[in-house]
């Protein structure tokens, strides 16, 4: 991120700096997730990463998506993760043998994935700048917009998705119940 780009017209400097700080924190936490020697610590670092995603959404004035992120990932998925880990193996202190034998293969996969995503984003948006975020409160109708779209043009996919989730829930019960 160079100074010329920051000072260009229509670029919100404060927002970019905030993005950089949060992104750096997320990368650090993500590295900790894969390098820590304790399963519970890894899960807690993952909470930091997911919280960072929510913070990025807030920075982009996507408040509804940010709240959904907290609700689904931090409030439900991570609690379930921790619950599962603590019910099964939850030693305090360092553990050995957490690494898979083929862990090194993950590095080229990650690099290729990063390159692909970076290329896709840069190719699509190039030098575009994000529109100024709207104020919160009465001027911000983003939640209402989402509701309007989900319940009129996208009603059929929305219903389809609910049935997929319902099928998954029923499937989980069938698999888990032996009697």
């Amino acid at each position, binding site marked *: 991120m160079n100074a010329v780009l920051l000072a260009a017209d229509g670029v919100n400097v404060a927002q970019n700096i905030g993005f950089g700080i949060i992104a750096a924190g997320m990368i650090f936490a993500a590295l900790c997730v894969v390098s820590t020697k304790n399963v519970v610590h890894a899960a807690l670092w993952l909470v930091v990463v997911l919280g960072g995603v929510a913070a990025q959404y807030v920075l982009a004035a996507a408040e509804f998506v940010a709240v959904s992120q907290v609700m689904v990932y931090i409030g439900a998925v991570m609690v379930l993760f921790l619950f599962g880990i603590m019910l099964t193996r*939850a030693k305090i202190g360092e553990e050995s043998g957490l690494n898979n034998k083929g862990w090194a293969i993950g590095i080229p996969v990650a690099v290729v994935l990063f390159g692909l995503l970076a290329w896709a984003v840069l190719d699509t948006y190039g030098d575009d700048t994000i529109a100024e975020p709207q104020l919160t409160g009465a001027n911000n109708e983003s939640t209402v917009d989402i509701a309007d779209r989900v319940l009129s043009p996208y009603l059929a996919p929305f219903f389809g998705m609910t049935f997929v989730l319902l099928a998954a829930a029923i499937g989980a019960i069938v698999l888990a119940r032996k009697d």
Partner: protein
Amino acid sequence: MISVLAVEIPYWGQSLLRVLGGLVAVLLPAGAIVYLFLFKMMSFMQSRLGPMEAGPYGSMQLLAEVGKWLQKEDISPDNVDKTVFKLAPVVVLLSTFLLIVVVPFGPEAVFADLDAGVFYFLAVGSVSVLGILMAGWASANKYSLLGGLRAAGQLIAYELPMVLATLGVVIQAESMNLNRIVEVQNTEAIFGFEWLGNPFVITQFLGFLIFMIAVQAELTQPPFDMPIAESELVSGYMTEYSGFRFLMFFIAEFATAGVFAFIAATLFLGGWGVPFEWFGWDNLDDVSWWMNIVGPLILFTKMLALVFVIMWVRFTYPRFREDQLQTFAWKFLIPLSLANIAVTAILKVAV
């Protein structure tokens, strides 16, 4: 906030005021609840006087208690996971402070006027589970771990009826903005009485009951205190905590009671407002500026009334067994709240 004082406050000043306001809005109710209900009401219900020595009627007892906790040695057992052990009470207390952000105290006295306010408090309210799980695991104690797991299971189970009970209000108010919900309750009429407004506790009475039961369980107050059941688990996930770390859990418990009561008052009892008909206001923009000062007092009174009910139940009923507690949530409250949503939605369209 700016227009009340009629002076321009710079952004850092506003932020500072918000932080100070948040501290007051969390700690003042917590103190009031502990003194009025935990010390005095509990004592009177048990035919004793409660604290009487510190100050008139023991009113300075809180200061003495806080002083006592702060003086204690900061003990953490040898085998605990130090970082997580110390972080856990902070996470629990932090989620309480994050909750107060959306509570509207007046037409303009709001920390953040979020469009998705209802959704926000439901999401942030579930963060405290993380802190409880962290405390339970990091304590390196089987009682603590069991307490933490019980707490997580209970909070997950009772979050659903809470979300579903709130949906009834959202459907009726047609908004997730808490200030808009207050406005709707105070401008509409019920049975043609405009002077009463339309507090949702009347039309959503079932939702109100489910919400208050879920709040009781989310706060792990008796009769839902399986996670800290002292006859089985010493005191659950808090067993290894002492001194000011225990104090943080303690403050968080009662501050969260206050914040949830604020939110329940906003959703069901008309929040900070009085029926706008009384003063001839038409909508939120019409409301006089002095409601920013009177509003918090009205909300505070309603909060105390609701916490009184929470505490009344707490001191009255014996503890649920773990399986009864789960059955009650999954097999009774959730179907009931789904039925409530269906009926509310049908009436909303039909009437």
